[in-house]
């Protein structure tokens, strides 16, 4: 993984020093709140319902054991013993004191982390496939390009006052695990017929109050042109993006209103002035960054095959966990392990300080010191020998981290919602908990198969409800919580935005509604291999509407 050089260390330490001075002056009254608020936000410090919230960047969701241990220590020493992993592969602390935040940022800087650009109208943390560098289906590791984008966009004066926040995602496999088509810019790393690396470029996707699927404006952009072309996109956006209306300021609105072809024409025209400039990436720079992400030296461990078979035979719990949470690695003797942060009835994405330390230890001992955070709010050990899987499982089990539900109906994404967030209109976590408890039987979950439920507590859609197979949006109606259901959304290579199925449900009825939807699917699927999404795309909303609303639907 990337390691800070002298410049990076100096930059981050200087930034902490500046911030410390700003906090001291704010607390002494020298700076007023209106002047201070944008400064704290630039350093990831929000004010939420109960306290401040600190959002720490985890670039493209990659970190090592030492960094995870530090996140655990911060949770213990400065917060309330836990952290919340987010849908942007970051971590949030819910209770830090403003007066402690400079010390926390110092702690982070010591392990090459920070909270810069985790808020504000700038280019946010670049996200990537959480299986990057390990997945068997990967063309190339997207993280070097994410790192190049991170370095280029960090503190970039041209992008410090964009019309609105800006999110970039990169994937390196045909199977899109990074939801690139619902990002401001989505990059699909691939090879052309000559075997050269480059990107399909998608622009103008996003969720929020106006969900839009990104438009592909380039089928193949050579890798050397990554920064010049991205700069061209940013310049068109910076020039024409709406600054008069916050709700129309994202690039998705600009692309939609301008039209794909005209927007693309403007980008290409801008690019002609940029493509042969200093922004062209030299091969040696690409190679230098890629070297940081060189795959670990994986020794052959063929004994794992037999050990796995024996372990599965002896322990059905282990067998279920391997079946559900272990994914093929590009090395046949290794596996990618998903650590579910979705225990039955638990809080999606939360991990205690001790759980974080367990994960750190397992990464160091069995995982070549690599950990990933997924946008689905789970953790990943990307390089585990199959021979070590049972040891990893036993340790996770002891720590309450061995729930065998990756990709199943209880692997629910939920934003913090009204339990923490100042923007939320309704709670999201309790809904996730109740659905999780309703479907607690693993046998039932596996019979249902892949089903992604995503829940947001407001229209900003941090819980990605628009791309949930079943999406749930909490709203406030007449002073009470109400939950709207969307069906058929998907955030993969065949991205779709879920359709609203009908009137919303009260908190005490939403779990029943979800169960009705699931049972309807079970009743109409052609065979057990037809997933919920496939079945929905085949039959459309009508059977689900009828099941949910009965005669009223027919009358309508």
């Amino acid at each position, binding site marked *: 993984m990337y390691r800070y050089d002298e410049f990076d260390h100096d930059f981050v330490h200087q930034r902490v020093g500046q911030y410390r001075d700003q906090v001291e002056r*704010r*607390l002494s*009254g020298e700076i*007023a*709140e209106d002047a201070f608020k944008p400064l704290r936000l630039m350093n990831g410090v929000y*004010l*939420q*319902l*109960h*306290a*401040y919230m600190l959002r720490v960047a985890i670039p493209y969701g990659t970190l090592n054991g030492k960094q995870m241990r530090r996140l655990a220590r911060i949770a213990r020493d400065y917060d*309330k013993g836990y952290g919340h992993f987010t849908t942007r592969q970051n971590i949030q602390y819910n*209770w*830090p*004191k*403003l*007066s402690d935040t400079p010390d926390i940022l110092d702690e982070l800087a010591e392990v090459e982390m920070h909270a810069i650009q985790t808020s504000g109208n700038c280019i946010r943390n670049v996200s990537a496939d959480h299986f990057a560098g390990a997945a068997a289906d990967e063309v190339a590791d997207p993280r070097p390009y994410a790192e190049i984008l991170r370095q280029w966009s960090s503190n970039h004066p041209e992008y410090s006052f964009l019309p609105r926040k800006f999110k970039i995602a990169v994937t390196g496999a045909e199977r899109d695990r990074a939801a690139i088509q619902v990002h401001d810019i989505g990059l699909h790393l691939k090879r052309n017929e000559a075997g050269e690396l480059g990107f399909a470029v998608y622009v103008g996707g996003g969720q929020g109050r106006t969900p839009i699927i990104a438009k592909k404006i380039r089928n193949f952009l050579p890798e050397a042109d990554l920064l010049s072309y991205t700069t061209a996109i940013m310049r068109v956006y910076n020039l024409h993006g709406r600054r008069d209306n916050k709700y129309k300021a994202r690039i998705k609105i600009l692309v939609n209103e301008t039209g794909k072809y005209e927007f693309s024409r403007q980008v290409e025209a801008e690019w002609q002035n940029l493509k042969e400039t200093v922004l062209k990436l030299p091969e040696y720079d690409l190679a230098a960054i890629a070297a940081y992400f060189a795959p670990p030296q994986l020794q052959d461990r063929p004994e794992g095959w037999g050990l796995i078979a024996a372990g599965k035979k002896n322990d059905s719990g282990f067998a279920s966990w391997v079946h559900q949470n272990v994914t093929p690695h590009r090395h046949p003797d290794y596996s990618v392990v998903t650590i579910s942060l979705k225990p039955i009835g638990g*809080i999606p994405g939360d991990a205690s300080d001790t759980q974080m330390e367990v994960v750190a230890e397992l990464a160091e001992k069995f995982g070549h010191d690599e950990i990933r955070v997924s946008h689905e709010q789970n953790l990943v050990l990307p390089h585990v020998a199959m021979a070590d899987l049972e040891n990893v499982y036993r340790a996770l089990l002891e720590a309450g981290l061995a729930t065998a539900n990756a990709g199943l109906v209880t692997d629910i994404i939920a934003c913090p919602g*009204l*339990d*923490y967030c100042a923007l*939320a209109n309704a*709670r999201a*976590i*309790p809904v996730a*908990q109740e659905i999780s408890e309703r479907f607690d039987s693993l046998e039932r979950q596996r019979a249902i198969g892949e089903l992604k439920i995503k829940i947001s507590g407001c229209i900003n859609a941090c819980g990605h409800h628009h791309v949930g197979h079943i999406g749930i949006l909490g709203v*406030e109606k007449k*002073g*009470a*919580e109400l939950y709207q259901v969307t069906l058929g959304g998907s955030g993969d290579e065949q991205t779709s935005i879920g359709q609203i199925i009908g009137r919303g449900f009260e908190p005490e009825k939403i779990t029943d509604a979800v169960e009705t939807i699931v049972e309807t699917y079970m009743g109409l699927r052609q065979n057990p291999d037809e997933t919920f999404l496939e079945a929905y795309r085949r039959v459309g909303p009508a059977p689900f509407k009828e099941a949910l609303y009965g005669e009223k639907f027919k009358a309508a």
Partner: protein
Amino acid sequence: MMKVLTANRLADGIAVWLGANGQWLESIDAALIARHAEAVDALDDAGKSAFNNNVVVDIALIDVTEIDSEIYPIRLRERIRASGPTIRTDLGKQAEFRQATAA
């Protein structure tokens, strides 16, 4: 409609309510209730003053009612602020001062 004045304390961000003695309290229980327009105006002035003096941020007048002599915010958002996260009753005011009243 009865109102109380709430805010978050500048230094640690903790939710606070203005009490009858002019102090910012960590529990809503002893918040000063404004029962008529003049009292609401007085609360508003007190909030602006505290904001300008860098004591609190994010001040807001919120609607409340009284149930069995306890102050009960009308909006769920404010009930959760007054109690703590509904999904972690070991955290927030409910763990420190009172039983959960939200939800």
